[in-house]
């Protein structure tokens, strides 16, 4: 089984560890890989996590990707958007998101590329990033680690605050884990510098340095822990039996 482990499966497994010590927090994985990763966390390292059906209800068992028989969902509670705001302002959530840009300060952008007054490319808008990053723990998944995503200087429109925020009583965000197609990182280097924790198979330190628009610290260059047989089985047979994850890296 281990012979055919794919990059998406390595990323999902590495990302799932982000929620390990979160107790009963609401785990929100936005996008394919983060969502499967949150489900894997609930089935392995942290069964206490709360999780939604992607819409309005809290469910006891993570839902598989793709079409399913919704009558099989085990619903345990209610989580309308209104309640999500109450939950997140109280700090009771750990989300994993995919910003379009991230900088050395941990600032993130999903709003637009270019000058905000006349954008070159309009993206989503800041959505909930300002509230999320000031209120609760977040992790980040980047499928295309490059100098266009890990940008030099500052992101074009700061949507989620970074470690350079000077506002006294909410001065530091809590960016827990950063998983990319090249490796695993966090922001716990000197003075909250992005630091490398592990490298995915087949990737070199030079690949990572060349594709990051700012200086990073190297805490470890060991290889990212590969998924166990149990984790592979859960990903392939329970969480994503239709293989929707393969679209992310064209596997």
């Amino acid at each position, binding site marked *: 089984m281990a012979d055919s482990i794919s990059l998406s499966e390595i990323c999902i497994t590495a990302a799932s560890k982000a929620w390990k010590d979160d107790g009963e927090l609401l785990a929100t994985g936005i996008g394919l890989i983060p969502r499967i990763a949150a489900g894997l966390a609930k089935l392995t390292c942290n069964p206490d996590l709360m999780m939604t059906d992607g819409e309005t209800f809290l469910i006891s068992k993570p839902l598989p990707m793709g079409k399913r028989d919704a009558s099989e969902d085990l619903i345990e509670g209610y989580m309308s958007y209104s309640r999500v705001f109450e939950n997140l302002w109280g700090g009771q959530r750990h989300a994993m998101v995919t910003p379009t840009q991230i900088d050395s300060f941990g600032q993130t952008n999903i709003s637009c590329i270019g000058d905000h007054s006349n954008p070159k490319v309009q993206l*989503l808008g*800041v959505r*909930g*990033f300002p509230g999320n990053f000031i*209120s609760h723990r977040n992790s980040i998944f980047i499928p295309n680690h490059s100098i266009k995503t890990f940008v030099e200087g500052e992101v074009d429109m700061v949507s989620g605050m970074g470690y350079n925020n000077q*506002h006294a009583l909410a001065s530091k965000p809590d960016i827990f884990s950063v998983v990319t197609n090249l490796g695993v990182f966090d922001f716990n280097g000197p003075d909250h510098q992005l630091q490398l924790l592990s490298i995915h198979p087949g990737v070199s330190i030079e690949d990572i340095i060349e594709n990051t628009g700012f200086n990073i610290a190297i805490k470890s260059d060991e290889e990212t822990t590969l998924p166990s047989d149990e984790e592979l089985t859960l990903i392939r047979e329970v969480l994503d039996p239709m293989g929707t994850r393969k679209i992310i890296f064209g596997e």
Partner: protein
Amino acid sequence: MNKILSHSDVISQLSDGMTIGVGGWGARRKPMSLIRAICQSDLKDLTIVSYGGPDVGLLCAHRKVKKLIFGFVSLDMIPLDSHFRQARQNGELEVMELDEGMVQWGLRAAAMKLSFLPTRVGFGTDVLKNNPEIKLITSPYADGEQYVAMPALNLDVALLHVNKSDQKGNTQIFGPDPFFDEMFARAANKTYVSAEEVVETEGLGGKEGAIFNRFERSLVTGVTHAPGGAHPTSCAPNYGFDMEHLKTYSAAAKSFEDYNDKYLNISHTDYIEAVGGETFVNNIPLPQF
């Protein structure tokens, strides 16, 4: 009391330069028949407050929007709205871009007749840099903490789509998530709702039905009967969003005339026929996320 109005009655009660809040969320439960009626009208220079979906895109495509107050514009399964992107990239509108929660806070302040509500949200981001009109305030208590004073988003009008209403404006939203429609209604001087179904008060389902009454009728000025009125957005539990139509709509950013001729310059009844008929709309399956 009878608050039943036609689409054109509602439009005649709107005027240029108004601030209009639109209920729903992204591609979900948008009052699209009223939005299309605005697109067909001579109304202009509107300020739109929305958790944006194709409501914002269509209004942008018709150059109705002077200023947009928003946190996002998205069609859910299609992440970005092509018409809104085009308008932004061509510099066609002013924006007040806010965190989603700040939009709610602004509506809530207006609903409570307050000038602002305090929050930490916004600090450390370019939301404050790009909206210099948003001021800070210091707590008068011992903590002395500084907060963002999110200003009230006072609306002239709110437009909402609901599942059911009687003639008096006793509305019911059956979708599991009512979004922030209640806040839009409370923040507005006048609220107009379009309804899938208009019934006698006896048909509202008594106590069981009343649980789905998300805001009181005194807030409702007019009720328009619009079966399929949220199409191409979803209206749970009646119907899901029409992915094929949303794709057609998205592609129309390149050549809008065809789409406009086929779907915009017609009555709501003819629109529903043009997109496949009422039975078709009511059979669009609800999405799974």
